[in-house]
């Protein structure tokens, strides 16, 4: 039924004049919309804008004309004039209804387009938490790539500028419908990619969906470079083009709401497939898995690994040391780490707020948990580097009790 209604109002959709060819379009939008739906919704916006401009100019012109023409002249009375005119009043009630009906129908049509994903969309899971995003690809991998903002999305304009903190980059296939199943781990968030012209709220304990089909990169798009500044190439030796789109959290969620950003990086479909295979945890060592989890599950947003201060305790030299908690001093061993991830409120590190999100065994399964523990061990001077070759310098009484 919905599709029938959609087809019915389809004729009311884009008008003959495409949005981006209109004057003043560039006042409102920085690009032409990166999905078909975005372009359509901009067309509706511009149509409403021109209707509004026409009404506004008409009303204000009348007002200014009347004020000048009928200004008060001392000793001259205002002439008699009618204070009621049924025909006029009916007309100015009915005429706006036509415009409003157009807006309602066009809006409804665009809404259906934006809400209902095609059946062949690739499904991914998205979790939001204070103040980070995680997207799990169909093969179970997550993106470990991050950048300091300003940089990535700014590249379209030129120079990179430093941002406030690292934000995640999610690789997405171009010209392919993608659907997110979204849920929050703590408070409400809202997933907004301005270039896609759609946002959707994310709740704890309830799924919402979001879909888009981003236009793929073309020859004019940016060329992907690796960390050393060299062009990334495919197996065939071709350069990889990409488009970046900002993600902003649009539902207020606390202290770093203003920094809860991310980047959707649209790449050719083949490169996307290769990328998520690279991040697949199969065949990786526990430490490597742990590092991937650290980056992809957003631990990196609050916990540093170099000993510097973050919103949460650093992981550098955490393992094997005693930490002050509200339940008394506690040895940071495997069980402490496990408990802190699955039941964060059990023991709260003193000097830090209790805002660690809860992770479920579905999000961090046993293999990833062991990976995390291995990774945390690997950056602690008090932890045995491996079972085979414990450093001889370690004092036995400092060794973690098992």
């Amino acid at each position: 039924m919905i599709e029938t209604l959609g087809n019915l109002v389809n004729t009311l959709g884009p008008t003959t004049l495409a949005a981006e060819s209109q004057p003043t379009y560039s006042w409102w939008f920085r690009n032409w919309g990166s999905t078909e739906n975005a372009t359509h919704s901009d067309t509706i916006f511009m149509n409403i804008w021109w209707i509004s401009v026409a009404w506004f100019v008409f009303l204000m012109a009348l007002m200014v004309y009347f004020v000048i023409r009928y200004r008060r002249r001392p000793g001259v009375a205002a002439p008699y004039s009618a204070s009621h005119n049924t025909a006029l009043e009916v007309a100015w009630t009915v005429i706006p209804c036509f415009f409003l009906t157009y807006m309602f129908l066009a809006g409804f049509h665009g809404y259906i387009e934006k809400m209902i994903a095609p059946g062949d969309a690739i499904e991914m899971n998205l979790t939001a938490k204070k103040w980070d995003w995680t997207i799990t690809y169909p093969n179970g991998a997550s993106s470990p790539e991050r950048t300091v903002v300003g940089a990535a999305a700014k590249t379209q304009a030129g120079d990179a500028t430093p941002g406030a903190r690292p934000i995640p980059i999610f690789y997405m296939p171009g010209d392919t419908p993608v659907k997110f199943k979204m849920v929050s781990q703590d408070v409400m968030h809202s997933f907004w990619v301005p270039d896609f012209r759609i946002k959707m709220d994310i709740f704890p304990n309830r799924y919402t969906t979001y879909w888009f089909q981003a236009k793929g990169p073309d020859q004019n798009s940016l060329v992907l470079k690796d960390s050393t500044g060299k062009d990334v190439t495919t197996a065939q030796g071709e350069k990889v083009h990409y488009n970046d789109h900002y993600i902003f959290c649009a539902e207020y969620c606390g202290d770093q709401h203003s920094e809860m950003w991310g980047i959707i990086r649209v790449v050719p479909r083949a490169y996307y497939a290769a990328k998520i295979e690279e991040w697949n945890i199969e065949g990786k060592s526990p430490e490597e898995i742990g590092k991937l989890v650290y980056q992809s599950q957003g631990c990196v947003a609050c916990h540093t690994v170099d000993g510097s201060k973050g919103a949460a305790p650093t992981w550098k030299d955490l393992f094997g040391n005693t930490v002050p908690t509200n339940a008394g001093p506690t040895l940071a061993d495997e069980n402490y780490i496990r408990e802190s991830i699955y039941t964060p409120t059990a023991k709260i590190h003193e000097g830090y707020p209790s805002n660690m999100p809860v992770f479920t065994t579905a999000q961090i399964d046993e293999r990833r948990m062991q990976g995390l523990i291995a990774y945390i061990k690997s950056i602690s001077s008090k932890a045995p580097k491996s079972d085979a070759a414990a450093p001889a310098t370690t004092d036995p009484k400092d060794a973690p009790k098992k």
Partner: protein
Amino acid sequence: MTTLDSSKAGHLGDHHGHHGGSYLTPKGGWLTTVVDWATTVDHKKIGVMYLVAVLFMFFLGGVAALVVRTELLTPVRTVEVQATDAAGKLMVDADGKPVMKSVITGQWLGEMKAKIKGEELTSIDGGNNWYNRAFTLHGAIMVFMVIIPSIPASLGNFLIPLMLGAKDVAFPRLNLLSWYIYVTGSIFAVCSIIIGGVDTGWTFYTPYSTTTDAEYANVVLMVLGAFILGFSSILTGLNFVVTVHKLRAPGMGWFDMPLFIWAMYSTSLIQVLATPVIGITLLLLIFERMFKIGIFDPAMGGDPVLYQHFFWFYSHPVVYVMILPAFGVISEIIPVHSHKKIFGYRAVAFASLGVALVSFLVWGHHMFASSGELGATVFSALTFLVAIPTAVKVFNWIATLYKGSIALTTPMWYALIFLFLFSIGGLTGLPLGTLATDLHLHDSYYVVAHFHYVMMGGTIITFVGGLHHWWPKMFGRMYNQFWANIGAFTVFIGFNVTFFTQFFLGTQGMPRRYASYIDDYQIYHVISTVGSYILLLGFLIHLFVFLHSLVAGRKAPANPWGGLTLEWEATSPPDEHNFHHEPIVRHGPYDFDTTVPPHWDPKDYPLPARPKHAH
């Protein structure tokens, strides 16, 4: 400007004024006067007390707004700089390479907080804390303590009995109680700020609001403050409804009432019917926080969307509690300063009631981006329905100007500014009611700009305009119109510079409630902030003009603008009991083409020749 000449127009009023004394005449020494005001049941004094309280809260909310705008001048950035040692020398390591460290820039409030604590800002953690409190403070104060009570409680209290030809409101003691409840609620809110403030946003969305600052009482105090303020609203509304029903002067039928009364009547109905819902909701929120009962918090099996439904079921009708009184004020200012009968009286009156009715059915349009349900389409359609009576009113006001005798006084300038700003506010609401575009614009700066055009450009601008219109009546003094006009123009310019830029910010992707942003947005934020300083200047000019008027203003005639509603028959300022004799209504409130205004000399007001076919 003969009409403003007190020596001519005022002489009729003067011979009424010599006995009894105005309501402002002190009863004795300062202590007696204070006690007299604190225990008064006179609606005029209560109106003035509301005015003072509301203006004070407006000042607080305004300071918070300027803090927010100042913070937004620069985005938050982490930058690497060379470290300095205790002596202030640049540090280098053993190899002579500079020692670098990370510092946070662009966080004005965070830096201030760190400086007070004697720390160095090296992480963004906690740095937006003060910013989040500032915008919550701004929103909560402006909505609950300024805009909702502004016109109804101050101008409404002062004018409703006068316009109806009554001695007071129906329940004068209840009226005083409402004021004390308002002050109590405001004190709760101010206490909450003093002990650390609230960072929830004025909407208190769950589960954030039930979990933030868990160990502190700030949120409970602030929510309790809003809960208490609700009672003030309900009692005032109830009082006005009964007053309008029972205390109209002899000869005043429903359709002889000034349109301000119609607007206040509609407003009061909404206040009485909708406010209990927010009362219950806020109480549930407090229970949720304190006793963890699990209504709204999904961690305990609750539903956060339920909170949004409850909240907006009140807070959307309340948007019309904010704007309907403004419609009423404009419906007075335009006819009086044009000496022209309002066009389509009944249409305007019924539009008020129509808006009040439909306002209860559109709350869902605040949740288009919540879950993407088909039900959103119903709310979208109903939202467009509200646009029609609102548009009809604007047409009526502009049609009223036709063939009028328009004097560009300060109140009239404000009415014209209102028409300009409110038209923009209304028209920019259309893409928000349109489902497809709202999914992009929801919770962006576009929404911020839109509701400032409606709430501030609509209600606050009208409140200030109405204050200029009735100031001579309230305080018996004229003000310097030249400087008041300068103030009005400054406010107009500052307002547009501040808020029009925010439309562009919104469509380009700037979310609301952000302390930081990408570089592309900075130029708009800088322009907007400069605009807010211009706005401040405009309001300071008004403050100065009003203070000057109180101290040195020339005595106001009883009817400076030539109005026909009953308050202009009373002296300026009115007597303690409003009228010497119970007024009898002999003409309609807008019959400018057949009636010489009270206290005016017919020589100054030649009535127009009427065409033969007119009745």
